[in-house]
């Protein structure tokens, strides 16, 4: 059943298709039972109804139609004003060609005669140029941890992270921001840049669907590569569990060095925050097959929880001290709440 909506900023009217299958998946209507649905189906559907969503019958939903419709009303906010290369919808430091008056300046030879304010010339007999505010686009980069450790937990951390990434990408695309997707483990494994307009959503989904979950995580190496590749400043959203034996500080230093507006979402599963282990166990690290032999006891569990809390707190403290926004997400909490409420409160979206 089509619901007509009006875009907040540009008066775009989108149609959302309410899912017929309750609880639906990301994109309804396509037949292939994959996590994110068929790319073909998405493209076709989106060509006709940009915000129409299809639901996968079998797999868990990533973004449902209603949720996507609400996302359309959001935009990603950068706390800094970054210079960009293309025109967009965001106010820039530069003077440009928007409809919004900014200032006057004296005419110098070579200026475009079209911008001379002839009314002023008539009054004052001097040539002044009318300056307008320039509007540019925003670089939104999504750094997604796809190391093997993300492929654990119930609900899955990787699914959760990809959902958040999809939601943020969609918000960015809706607002004509330049979206960059970057998946990493111990280096960048997949990279897609320059995505603009919601037509590209299908590519975003395909990217997220196709990216393999594998390898050890090494945030510092990945951040270094990303910083080298991403020349432009902008908003960077890092989605990771940060269970990285190499540490997290170095990676953040690379990003901070590029003066990026950084947002961090640490994704942990309930099994990591409240382990349900008993007995004598041989714990094997899923990434590097490192082994820890433990005899589970209340004392040990208490110590583990205290350590986890201290670790998360250390990341939070590091981030806060450097102007990085940090949020800890537990996958048992609905990610919609994260995107619609929490990130709004924290100012990443509005």
């Amino acid at each position, binding site marked *: 059943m089509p619901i007509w909506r009006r875009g907040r900023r540009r008066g775009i009217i989108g149609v959302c298709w309410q899912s017929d299958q309750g609880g639906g998946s990301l994109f309804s209507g396509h037949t292939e039972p994959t996590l994110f649905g068929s790319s073909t189906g998405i493209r076709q559907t989106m060509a006709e109804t940009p915000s129409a969503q299809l639901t996968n019958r079998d797999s868990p939903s990533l973004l449902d139609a209603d949720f996507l419709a609400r996302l359309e009303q959001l935009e990603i906010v950068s706390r800094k004003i970054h210079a960009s290369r293309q025109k967009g919808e965001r106010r820039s430091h530069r003077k440009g060609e928007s409809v919004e008056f900014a200032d006057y300046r004296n005419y110098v030879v070579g200026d475009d005669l079209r911008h001379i304010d002839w009314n002023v010339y008539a009054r004052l007999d001097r040539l002044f140029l009318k300056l307008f505010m320039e509007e540019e686009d925003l670089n939104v980069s999504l750094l997604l941890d796809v190391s093997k450790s993300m492929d*654990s937990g119930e609900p899955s951390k990787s699914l959760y992270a990809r959902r958040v990434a999809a939601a943020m990408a969609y918000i960015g695309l809706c607002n004509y921001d330049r979206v960059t997707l970057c998946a990493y483990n111990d280096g960048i494994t997949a990279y897609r840049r320059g995505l603009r307009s919601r037509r590209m959503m299908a590519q975003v989904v395909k990217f997220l669907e196709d990216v393999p979950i594998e390898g050890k995580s090494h945030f510092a190496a990945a951040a270094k590569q990303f910083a080298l590749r991403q020349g432009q400043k902008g908003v960077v959203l890092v989605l990771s569990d940060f*269970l990285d034996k190499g540490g997290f500080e170095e990676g953040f230093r690379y990003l901070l060095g590029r003066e990026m507006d950084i947002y961090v979402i640490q994704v942990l599963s309930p099994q990591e925050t409240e382990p349900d282990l008993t007995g*004598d166990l041989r*714990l094997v*690290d899923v990434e590097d097959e490192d082994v820890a032999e*433990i005899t589970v006891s209340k004392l040990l*569990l208490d*110590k*583990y929880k205290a350590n986890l809390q201290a670790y998360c707190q250390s990341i939070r403290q590091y981030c806060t001290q450097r102007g990085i926004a940090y949020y800890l997400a537990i996958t048992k909490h609905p990610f919609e709440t994260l995107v619609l409420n929490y990130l709004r409160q924290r100012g990443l979206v509005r």
Partner: protein
Amino acid sequence: MKFLSLPTGLLVAAVAIPALLLLYFLKLRRRERTVSSTLLWKRAVQDLQVNAPFQKLRKNLLLFLQLLILAAVLFALANPVANFIKRPKRNIVILIDRSASMKTREADGRIRLAHAKDGAMDLVDSLQGDSRAMVLSFADRAEVVSSFTEDHRRLKRQIEQIKPTDGPSKLGEALQLAVAYSANFAAGAVDKAVRGSMETADIDLFSDGRIKDADQQFVTRGRMTYYRVGAATDNAGIVAFDVRRDIERPGKVSVFVQVENFGPKQITSDVSLSLGRKMETVQQVTLGPAAATTTRPANSVAGAGRRTTRATQTLPSSRNVIFKMGHSAGGIITVKLHRADALATDNVVTAPIDPPRAIRVLAVSDRSAIRDFLQQAFQVAFRIKDFTLMTGSQYEEAGDDVLAVEGRSTFDLVVFDKHDTDRLWPGNYVFFGGIPKIPGISRGDEVEDQVFVTWREDHPLLRYVRLDNIFALKWSRLSLPSHAVKLIEGEDSTILAFITDPGHRYVISAFDLMDSNFIKNPASVIFLQNAMMYLAGGGLTGATRLITPGDTLSIPIPPGARSVRVTRPGGAVDQIDVADRNTATYARTRDCGIYKAVFDDAGKTTESYAANILDANESLIAPNEHFTIGAEAVQTVSSEIKANEPLWPYAAAAALVVLLLEWWIYNKRVMI
């Protein structure tokens, strides 16, 4: 401490300890679990190890506990015992008191003898493997329970079978037996070492220390140890008892009872008199506490103890109770002290009484003065209706039918004046200046110009007889058997003796009545009265039928009887073949109560005998704190202290406790 099974313990230890260590150090099989990262787990484990005190110890705490459990189990397996009394290898004689006072019921409900047996068995357990021991039990007589043996199991088995008696405790015979056995054993031992060790055989006495003849004994060899048994003190009992018929009015029966309290508290109790099964009368007595219970010397005579008590207490601890009743038939008289105390045996006394009959007295004398004197005394003073006078020749010529009836003397008392005879049917005889012609008694040279040096005032025959003014010009020196009781003694000769033989009792005076002022003195009449009452029991009650447990019964046999069946108080029956004998002897009189002998003659003659303790020494049940034998104090050990206490139950309990602790620690570690 000593290990009885050390090799077993060591053997098991050699196998079990390496096995445990091996098991412990084998890798624990852990379940494998994949986690997103071991980063935080490793840190947690590290933190725990760093922060925990005694990290090394904690790591192996369970192993330590398991080793501890194993050690406790091995300790128990080695069968450790705590030897509170260190015993070198040696040989011992165990004496176990089984007299009446050992029947005292202690606080735990078991009798004192059971405790003594436990103590003795503990002692046997504590002996080293090749130590020898023999066991004797004693009351008034000693009995060899087990001769010298190394077989400790046999010793314990034999100790277990010792049964209590109601007899008084006399140590003398037991000591003699102990010495004799050890001497025989030593002499028979070929090995010189064994003989050497026998010379130091020690005596271990398990008793409450109330032994009558302890002051008359001495230990000839070895060292004696006294194991004090028992703790109960609350007891009251009947310590004296007599039944009399009035001579003048034989239908009247007087019963005298002395009741004494030996406990520390004042008591009030009923004393009842029953005839047969019918209760005749009841009197209430209140007795004060025996103040000197514990300090009273054990070997002192009961009377002295009572005097002490009476002097210090306002309420006497001892009272006489007298019952009088009319009863012209025979029967069994029972006097009972109705009180539940630690020793029940001394609360009941019994006595058989015969129907009254006239006393028959025969006097044999050739001298008219004596004849007159005796006739006056018996016929006029004592009002004996059936009194016969004979001369010596008449007595010798008299037919058996005159002198005897049913195998016994026709007369209750026969008095001879200067007459020796061998015609002595079972009965009671008094000889003045003559002797019975029986083995062991003979007359020697004459003694002149001597005085009566000593006499026994406490003997029933000399009661109230004042001999201060009596003298004799001369008398014959008598040769008497060893069991003769010397009643009057001169400087080096016996003047008056009392001899008891089976069926016969003789009173023999060495002086002639005509050589003395005896018959001119009232003492002579009192003496004859005593003789008549004591020997003939007044002729009225069965004085001879009251015995002390352990005494040998001498039962006169009626003509025609070939066997006698004796029924004991417990109901057991013994049959004795008595053909061609005058008296039957019966010695199984261990318990108090009525012994009934039934003969198989035509008249089915029945005789009853009553055994009663009547012994203040036995009724005083408080254990003797300091036992002395002769004048020598004996080392005292309280048998409450286990001589050989096994420690394995403690070790097993410790193992259990540690096991529980280990379980708790393990669960505390594993539990979430």
